[in-house]
């Protein structure tokens, strides 16, 4: 092709792929980053779904602006100063609303991440990298440090943990927020509890397990009750299952740290899946944080340069399900009145990676309508990000706050009491906002609500 532009040598290392995605798996097929970003024709149809654009009205922090700035930096038109695009890239929520609105499904979030990786150069962000290294190499120590934080709280030294900047030091800002917002940090992590559950052990000669529960970091380290509810729900509707004994899915490393770590997490989970499959036959891998399940569904993209792993990743990805799509509404009936009374007026917030990332919109609504009937109301702008977006509330506190206020205002506008969500980051964020702006309502994880509404009544 007789190209008008030269691609900046800064991006040459894309060919090597170690620290980057060698290519993107887009809706239109496998594309180089440059081809993927050039697919943006600047039509602007994504602008009205981009929360940061809608709140600021500024093109550079819109989806189209971000794609264009990454493209210009690749074409060397940023005057060599890729840092100029820093704000544009850092303020992206990675919510993916733009890609869903886009006719060509330009993968803005992946493009932004590649832009961030390029802007950061070969050394990715230190803290998240250290953190994921820790989780990979010394999971025991990682858990110990978290427990230390919890202990500090329990022993009446909550401020100390904050002042020590323990979480901040770890780069796990949401945990710091959790430290403030979550009532209790569990002293026993979910993995420990589930490992001890005899029903989740494979019994020789028993029925073949249909599913394996994947414990994302949120439920594992913070919201063990969510994970327990998910497991109870899956047992109730899908029969025999197992605990996956998983690693972190790697999303944190993918978004904020070292992509090599993300690959390592992925490999470990894929291997684990293959072992389970070998032993028990086909089974679904079900997780209850939409960000994680959405990421795992795209594992293949991490390995486009490694044919063998690529195929294995694709097989794994095909088995992944989000807990919010796993339980069919057809298996449900109207919930008992007492259970509904506890929940009050129910609404549903589409976690970004559920609706934009995985296209899950129908399933949870059908289930909630079946269960709650008229007690279910639609939330205006339900598929707008809440501003949680992983570590966003820490990295972009001001923007995150503005986005959150819009969310809580929408929740208040339908006078909801219970907001069902699919991601643990949303849970943290929305509850923090509601506590301040609209304390009457509470966000709960979708599986927790479903578990409560479908619990058999004691006779």
């Amino acid at each position, binding site marked *: 092709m007789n190209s008008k532009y030269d691609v900046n040598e800064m991006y040459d290392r894309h060919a090597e792929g170690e620290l980057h995605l060698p290519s993107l798996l887009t809706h239109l097929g496998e594309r180089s980053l440059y*081809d993927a970003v050039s697919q943006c*024709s*600047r039509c602007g149809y994504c602008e*009205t779904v981009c929360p940061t654009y809608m709140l600021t009205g500024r093109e550079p922090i819109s989806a189209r*602006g971000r794609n264009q700035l990454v493209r210009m930096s690749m074409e060397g038109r940023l005057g060599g100063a890729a840092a100029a695009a820093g704000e*544009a890239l850092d303020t992206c929520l990675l919510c993916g609303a733009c890609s869903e609105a886009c*006719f060509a*499904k330009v993968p803005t979030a992946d493009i932004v991440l590649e832009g961030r990786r390029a802007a950061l150069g070969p050394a990715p962000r230190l803290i998240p990298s250290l953190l994921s290294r820790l989780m990979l190499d010394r999971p025991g120590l990682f858990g110990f440090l978290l427990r230390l934080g919890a202990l500090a709280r329990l022993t009446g030294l909550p401020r100390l943990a904050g002042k020590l900047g323990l979480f901040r030091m770890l780069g796990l800002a949401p945990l710091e927020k959790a430290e403030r917002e979550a009532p209790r940090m569990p002293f026993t992590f979910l993995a420990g509890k589930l490992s001890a559950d005899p029903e989740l052990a494979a019994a020789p000669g028993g029925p073949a397990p249909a599913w394996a529960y994947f414990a994302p970091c949120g439920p594992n380290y913070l919201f063990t009750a969510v994970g327990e509810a998910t497991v109870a729900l899956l047992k109730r509707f899908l029969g025999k299952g197992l605990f996956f004994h998983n690693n972190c899915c790697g999303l944190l490393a993918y978004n904020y740290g070292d992509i090599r770590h993300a690959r390592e997490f992925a490999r470990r989970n894929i291997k684990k899946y293959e072992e389970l499959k070998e032993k028990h036959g086909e089974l679904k891998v079900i997780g209850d944080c939409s960000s994680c399940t959405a990421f795992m569904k795209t594992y293949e993209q991490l390995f486009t340069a490694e044919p063998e792993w690529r195929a294995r990743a694709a097989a794994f990805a095909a088995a992944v399900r989000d807990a919010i799509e796993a339980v069919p509404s057809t298996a449900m009936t109207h919930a008992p009145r007492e259970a509904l009374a506890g929940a009050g007026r129910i609404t549903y917030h589409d976690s970004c990676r559920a609706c934009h990332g995985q296209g899950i919109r129908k399933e949870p609504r059908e289930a909630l309508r079946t269960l709650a009937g008229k007690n279910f109301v639609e939330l205006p702008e339900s598929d707008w990000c809440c501003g949680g977006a992983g570590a966003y509330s820490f990295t972009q506190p001001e923007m995150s706050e503005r986005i959150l206020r819009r969310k809580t205002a929408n929740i208040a506008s339908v006078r909801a009491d219970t907001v069902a969500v699919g991601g643990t980051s949303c849970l943290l964020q929305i509850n923090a906002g509601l506590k301040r702006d609209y304390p009457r309502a509470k966000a709960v994880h979708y599986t927790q609500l479903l578990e409560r509404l479908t619990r058999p009544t004691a006779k």
Partner: protein
Amino acid sequence: MFRKDRLHGTLEDLRRIAGEDNVFTAEADILAYSYDAGSARARPDAVVRVDSAEKVAPLVKLLHGAGVPFLPRLAGTNLSGGTVPLKGGVILNLSPLNRIRSIDTAAGIAVVEPGVVNLKLQEELAKAGFFYPPDPASQRVCTIGGNIGENAGGPLCLKYGVTADNVLGLTVVTPQGETLELSVEDTGPDLPGLFIGSEGTLGIVICARLRILPLPRHIMTAVCSFPSVDSAMKAVASTIAAGTVPRALEAMDRTSLDAAGGGGLRLSDATQAVLIVELDGNSRRELEKEMAETRSFAAAAGSLDFREAADESEREALWAARKGAYPALARLAPNVMVEDGAVPRPKLPEAAARVRAIISDYKLTAGLLFHAGDGNLHPNVIYDERDAEETRRVRKAGHEILRACIELGGTISGEHGVGVEKRLAMNWLYDRAELDLFSRVKEALDPKDLANPDKIIPVSDRHARRKTEPFHSRPAAASNLVSELKYRAAHGIKSRVRGLGTRTRPPSPEGGDACRNRAALPAVGGRAALRPTPDEPEARCSATSPASGRDLDVSGLDSVLEIYGENLTATFEAGVPLHVLRSALKAAGLEAPMPKLDGTLGGLIATKAWTGIRDLLLGLELALPDGTVCRLGGRSVKNVAGYDLTRLLCGSLGAYGVILSATLRVCPAGRAPRFHRPDGPVPAFSPSEVHRRLKKAFDPDNLLNPWIYG
């Protein structure tokens, strides 16, 4: 360097007015405002986010004083490079001005700020059971301000008109920073008409009053397939000619259909074109009758299949084929050039065939989408802008398509605007006379050339002469009148343009008997007592007086120039009495959708005695005071090429130029709605500052009806 210096010192003032956080000069901001949805590129020097409508005027005043170019920008979805700052300067980002100020369903008016997203307005209106007709394809993101800047259309404009037909009033900040309140009801030259579609080159709209309508009770949708584009267009023509005005009449060719995977329609191999017909109204029975008629027209034109949607979900499925075409093409390649030409409706099949040939000559791929009901065609050419050679071919093909549209009697833009990308094509559509007139209009309102400079009007190469001849030969009376004007201009003789209403009578007693006699004539002009004798131009002059000038009788302009039934347009000379116009149309089975008025057509236009005339007028032939003849507008029902001077001339009272002939949209006999005759005299007119400046653009020596601007 120069540009930096230009803003030096101004930045601080900009911050003071706009707010500290609203002025952006970082490289990323500059680059992000150096593009829009077209392919042109230019860097601004700064971007100012305007968070209150009241700040626009002081900001503009400041920039005007400092001599810094500026332009308003909203969603940046325009396809002609209209929001790219060719001379740098400041971009005024108005997108935060997104308040719907009021919705008054009783009066049928919505008052909105420019940043309101079209679809958002529709959603709010729908809650009250109303809608705002213009519905451009980008309505999900494009804004009312942008729609006004480009005079946007959409499928519904076939029945309900384009933006200019649906705006009742505007608050505009002029390039000098003055705020104007304009209404279509104002007397004098129609200023809203001039500002709409001026692409930010004449001023900035900060508030708009829009006409809103109750949602129709019933909508019926059908899809029919045809073995050729030609046969589909035949069906369109006979449907329209029968007087059925669908709310949408959209066509697409096989390539678009294939790209969209057939859009879920089961199409036979023989299908080469598909037509989507949508009717609306409040009477189900009426609609069913019209649908049955449409079906029989389709069958007569050779349709292969005709399917009506049984319910809302089926209706959506039928639309998916049309609405899915652009997205599908956008997936086939990184870029889609959405060309936008318009031709008289009956020429659509020929236009389609020529476009096809051009596309294949240049070895390109394109889907053809048509707003078939109004002769507007959108070839969607796919390409990769990174491929310089392919991009050149696309550009050349685009130019040839526009030339073809011109040759077929059409125009270079139906609804996307000229911006920078079609500037060159303006040379092919217009003669030097019109381009110079456009320049003078721009200069009159923006003498420093700061408001979105270098847009719409070609900056060079204005020597190219128009290739097409007028579609009618000029009758002797008009030629004589033109030479008379030339003669008078050369001798500085002022003229009193006759054949007008009594109100334009000079107030001075020198008017004499002739004037008193005319005062007894009907409100909207009338045949003057004195008929000119063509061989004796001097004989036209009577009642000469220094203040009011010599009479210039235009009642000799009495020919019916063209009745173009298939296109539903008709062209008359300005002196044709309205009763003659009516009977001429009636003889052709047509009528003009206007109240039954007396006087001449030219008089009606010049006095705007019935304001609705501004929406019927498609084209004008205008003689300037020096005898230069300008052809404005044309016979295509959609046209946004250049300033809308046809509308501006409505209410001009003969002081801007002498209207020689006018083209109107007409409808089949018996299909026009009933109109109330406007009663009472037209209110007196006293020109505003803007009217005066425009007067200088048209008539610098004040030769025509001089007392009005005396």
